[in-house]
């Protein structure tokens, strides 16, 4: 995938869509999940920060409003097309070379478990240019380093425009280290994700 390709071509070619968000991204992710159509023909992986003992019913709420299959990652699940996977609370979610998920309970990264960095870095190693990743609103720096690794591996990387992010620290951190190839407004993100 060359740098001459435009964003739409990159989106079309990508097999894995990675979404990372923290504080202020929940509502946005809910609407994204709601809007995604199986016709995009991708595996979707969502990493969202949350507290360990709050059974926040995220999966239930998301699943009820999704046109795609949606499940919380279980150890050794295979990454399937047209399925939305949510990283479980209190674990890091990794991707193995054989196309399965691995989980890890090691220390939090940026006080976060799941950490967006961990999943993004792992996706960068295995799926490289086959990934497209979007880093959304959040109040810490998790995800920036992972987005950079994705960019370095040839993946397409996007940060939500800090002006649009409810909490701008996370996308700003990514932009500051040059991890974001595209900085998109929320409506532009939706437009892209609607493209089949």
């Amino acid at each position, binding site marked *: 995938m060359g740098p001459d390709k435009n964003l739409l071509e990159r989106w079309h070619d990508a097999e894995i869509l990675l979404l990372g968000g923290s504080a202020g991204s929940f509502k946005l992710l809910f609407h994204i999940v709601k809007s995604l159509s199986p016709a995009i023909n991708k595996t979707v992986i969502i990493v969202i920060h949350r507290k360990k*003992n709050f*059974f926040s019913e995220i999966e239930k709420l998301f699943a009820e409003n999704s046109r795609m299959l949606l499940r*919380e*990652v*279980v*150890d*050794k699940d295979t990454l399937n097309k047209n399925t939305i996977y949510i990283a*479980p609370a*209190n*674990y890091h979610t*990794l*991707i*193995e*070379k054989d196309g399965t998920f*691995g*989980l*890890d*309970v*090691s*220390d939090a*990264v940026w006080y976060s478990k799941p950490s967006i*960095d*961990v999943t993004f*870095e*792992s996706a960068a*190693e*295995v799926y490289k240019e086959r990934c497209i990743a979007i880093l959304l609103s959040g109040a810490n720096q998790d995800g920036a*380093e992972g987005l*950079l*690794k994705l960019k370095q591996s040839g993946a397409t990387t996007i940060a939500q425009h800090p002006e649009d992010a409810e909490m701008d620290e996370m996308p700003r951190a990514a932009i500051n280290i040059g991890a974001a190839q595209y900085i998109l407004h929320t409506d532009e993100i939706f437009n892209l994700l609607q493209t089949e």
Partner: protein
Amino acid sequence: MTDTSVIISSVQITELIDLVKKFHGFDFSGYTKASLKRRITRIMQLKKLSFYDLKHTLVNDPHFFQDFLEEITVNVTEMFRDPSFYKALNNQVVPYLSTYQHSKIWCAGCSTGEEAYSLAILMREAGLSQKSFIYGTDINTEVLKEARRGIYSLRNIKSYAENYQFTGLKGSISDNFTILYDAASIHNELKQNTLFSVHNLVSDGVFNEFQLISCRNVFIYFETDLQERILDLFYKSLCHLGYLCLGSKETIRSDAFKKKFKVINQKENIYQKIGA
């Protein structure tokens, strides 16, 4: 901040696994590679070692391997991690355990002992202290020392207390230890019901017969072939109708073992040995 300069390849991981097996007798070949790679990268960053240095030190520094082992295995654990699991265990399994004259419980991959003591507390709350015994095992001798000591930082205890609240168990978690300055020491009464010893799930065999085996958040580090070998070990180590508990995101995938274990609680991954 992660150091982006450390990059190791899959070939190097394999090389390191072979070296560790040859020089130290520990076989990590069945461990999941993404996690293993992350751990090895971390060791290289912490110890400021290049890949060559790491290999050299592993072979030539006799004390280094213990450090390596501690870093390569994940020793993050909590008391009453996943409170809903303990609730399910208390409601669906403990009543059956109480019918035995004596229950032997194996906490496999116990790390620093928090889960083994959680089980001991659960049994105490059920009035089964005198009728139960908990064996905690791990491959790592250093973490077992900590488990035997049973002293945990007060800061962690606060989060354990929060977990405990959600278990629905009576009493308070603080009934189980004595606070000394910034640490909490597990009561001797609970310690007397536990034994911590070295056991390597990869290479060691059956050592007793158990009514309950709890092996939570250990399978996530093993590839499916190794998981299956260890399921066989657990199957052989359980009494007829004995219980097996896996982590809340772990599951039995092998068809052969699905037939040998009945699901008691799907969400919490509690199984019961059936068949001969």
